[in-house]
């Protein structure tokens, strides 16, 4: 790396940050030219978010400097970041669940007329931004009532309204569907021309290649390499992310060979309707099958898995599990019937953020399950957690660490781990790869296949259509709360068209 130009550049030097025993950033050096889109990629826990938080003032580095447009800053605070025009969209959304949408769009930046907040003017500023993003939402709805995908778009809108000169997007599309992602990328591509420098963190390499001028790869808190996109191809980047050997294994992964036939109907859903977006959904999942669910945000696809699991009340319809009609679907019954749900919104319903990694791994096995002993021992919890940390390669300093302190992808692994621990026969995976790095994703896919091969049923919803076409034996397309189509062996583009038509 060179430090050739000093103005119009953001350069960090020897940036380090330690959390307890974890070196999150390890003497990072990096130069980011102005008016470009920079992608930052790397494994879960590589230090990407930590770096972004330091750039935007949310976290103070232990050592190192940041130079912006020729001025060297030993540290950046929240207020300094605001002055410098640095805006960040956090990976773990920093929104106010109790407040309405409009308020969330102007946190501490409200427009005022005299002493009072001028909501009309705020609305006028917000509308075009929401329009550009493609978000249809009541500005007066309470944020906590919205889907995670809408919340992510609101977080995006919030930072867009700030019109920052340095825009940091930390996994902005992790909860978004193809359509929303596409629109976001479109938007991002236009920004450099308008004088905005973008730092774009993502695990979705397609997006990265589609949008970035330069790609920087991080591992273990340091830079692996940073090059113009034009000089790079996918394999090089993957190798940079996970290391040479591991990348070979990822590329060797092949398509699911076993097309399940003749398995029993594990799950049968007829004419399901709930109090929300689902109007008439019917589907089946047979043992040994991986079944996909595709649909736009708001189509009901994003509510379906939680509803099937009993977490949302149904108004009519029949859910049958291996021939047994579920009279009163409830989460407890589902756990009893060995149905697992990896929910889409891990922060709200997936994890106990303030409790340890160890405690979280036993959430279902000890908390939800009714078999086994009433007494629990610390040794038992530790053994389970240690086993799962190893099995899912969770990057954590120790088992007593707050799960909220793990990197986003590692949190997701904890959610998956705690569910697979009960050895379910039917697994509902609701966008399970959200924020998971490419290595772990391929590992997860292998796991899903193993489960299917061993006679379990998998219902899989993903916001990444490619994952569906790659993994699923069959896929249901859902539109306006109704199952419109059942497809197998279609390509990605074809499926996207079906969803959007």
């Amino acid at each position: 790396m060179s430090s050739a130009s000093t103005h119009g550049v953001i350069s960090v030097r020897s940036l380090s940050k330690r959390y307890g025993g974890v070196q999150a950033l390890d003497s990072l050096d990096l130069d980011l030219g102005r008016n470009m889109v920079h992608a930052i990629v790397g494994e879960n826990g590589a230090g990407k978010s930590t770096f972004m938080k330091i750039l935007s003032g949310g976290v103070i580095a232990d050592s190192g400097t940041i130079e912006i447009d020729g001025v060297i800053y030993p540290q950046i605070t929240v207020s300094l970041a605001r002055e410098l025009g640095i805006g960040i969209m956090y990976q773990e959304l920093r929104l106010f669940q109790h407040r309405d949408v409009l308020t969330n769009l102007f946190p501490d930046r409200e427009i005022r007329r005299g002493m009072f907040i001028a909501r009309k003017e705020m609305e006028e500023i917000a509308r075009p931004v929401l329009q550009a993003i493609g978000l249809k939402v009541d500005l007066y709805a309470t944020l906590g009532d919205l889907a995670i995908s809408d919340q992510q778009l609101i977080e995006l809108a919030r930072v867009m309204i700030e019109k920052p000169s340095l825009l940091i997007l930390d996994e902005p599309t992790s909860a978004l569907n193809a359509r929303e992602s596409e629109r976001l990328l479109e938007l991002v591509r236009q920004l450099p021309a308008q004088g905005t420098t973008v730092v774009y963190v993502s695990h979705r390499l397609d997006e990265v290649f589609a949008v970035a001028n330069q790609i920087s790869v991080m591992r273990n808190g340091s830079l692996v390499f940073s090059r113009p996109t034009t000089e790079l191809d996918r394999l090089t980047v993957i190798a940079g992310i996970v290391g040479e050997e591991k990348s070979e294994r990822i590329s060797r992964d092949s398509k699911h060979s076993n097309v399940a036939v003749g398995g029993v109907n594990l799950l049968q859903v007829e004419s399901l309707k709930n109090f929300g977006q689902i109007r008439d959904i019917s589907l089946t999942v047979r043992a040994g099958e991986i079944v996909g669910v595709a649909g736009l945000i708001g189509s009901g696809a994003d509510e379906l898995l939680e509803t099937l699991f009993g977490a949302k009340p149904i108004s009519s319809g029949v859910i049958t599990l291996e021939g047994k009609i579920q009279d009163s679907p409830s989460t407890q019954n589902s756990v009893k019937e060995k149905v697992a749900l990896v929910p889409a919104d891990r922060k709200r319903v997936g994890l106990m953020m303030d409790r340890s990694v160890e405690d979280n791994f036993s959430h279902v096995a000890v908390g939800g399950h009714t078999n086994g002993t009433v007494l629990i021992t610390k040794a038992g919890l530790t053994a389970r957690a240690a086993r799962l940390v190893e099995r899912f390669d969770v990057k954590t300093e120790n088992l007593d660490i707050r799960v909220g302190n793990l990197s986003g992808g590692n949190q997701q692994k904890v959610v998956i781990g705690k569910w697979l621990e009960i050895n379910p026969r039917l697994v509902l995976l609701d966008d399970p790869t959200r924020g998971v790095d490419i290595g772990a994703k391929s590992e997860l896919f292998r796991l899903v296949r193993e489960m299917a091969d061993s006679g379990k049923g998998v219902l899989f919803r993903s916001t990444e259509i490619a994952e569906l076409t790659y993994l699923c034996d069959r896929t249901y397309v859902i539109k306006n709360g109704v199952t419109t189509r059942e497809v197998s062996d279609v390509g990605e583009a074809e499926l996207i068209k079906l969803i959007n038509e």
Partner: protein
Amino acid sequence: MLTEFTPVLKVKKRFKLPEETSVVIALLILIAIIGALRPTFLKPVNLLNLSASYAIAALLAGCIVFLLAMGEIDLSFGWILNLSAVLAGLAMIAGVPIWISVFIGIAAGTAMGALNGVLTVVMRLPLIIVTLGTASIFQGTSLISNKSGSVVPTDKEITGHIFFRALGGQIDSPVPIILIFVVLAFFVLHLTLHKTRFGYRILAIGSNPEAARLAGIPTKKIKIQVCALMGGVSGVGGVLFLGFRGAVDPSTGGQMLLPVVAAAIIGGTPLSGGAGTVWGSLFGALIVGVIGVGVVFIGINAVWGTLVTGLVIIFAIGVDQIVRVRKKRFK
């Protein structure tokens, strides 16, 4: 791709009932029941007097909403009220002009509230823990200030002052003056919480303190300010009490904690922070008042009074909740 569609966003503005609807309905039902049993209860003068008696508690409830909205609770405000009133009263007796004494009381309350705020910020402890201690400190200081006696200005120069005559009801007014004052204060509190940046910051801190910090909100400063506001309003409550009753006892304010917090909660402000309704707390205070007065009004025997009070509270919050759930379902 996907550039072809740019739907015109229709942000539906649905008619929404205000969130205070449920508590108002509960209040009206209670009043209707008591009125049906004892029609004199419904005489306007009677309702106004009743409201005046609970005006000070209501005022404090309106302000405790700020703290609840921030995710905190103050246990000491009753004693701030007491000490402020005692200091103002002592100042008057010592010959300080009335309005200056009133100012002294309010300033003292503000200072006590600010002390709470500084302690909670410096010690990095929740306000509830800090005020566990400061409540005793304020109470103790009050006891010492007047050697455990009541503060009763008796001098005609003092009791004949417009301050005492206006608040004490000696000046003819169709609506008790203390009530007018408190209703005005509610407008101010409501606007402050829901229409100013200060209020937005309070709600932001209560909703997500970490996000508030990251948005650049000076959380410590705001905390101290809100505590000082609570202290100041308690100080106002103290001097109002002094004017209304013409005296302060060493025990004044000691029993206010539960009814005031209850009023705010019944009014619809959750304990968890991030939300709050100032007007709701006014109606909550009126519910607490109507239950308290209703029980004696109907003439329920002292031995049975407590049980009936409990049953009516459950009834009232039940009505409140049913309306709330209905409203939510059909909104």
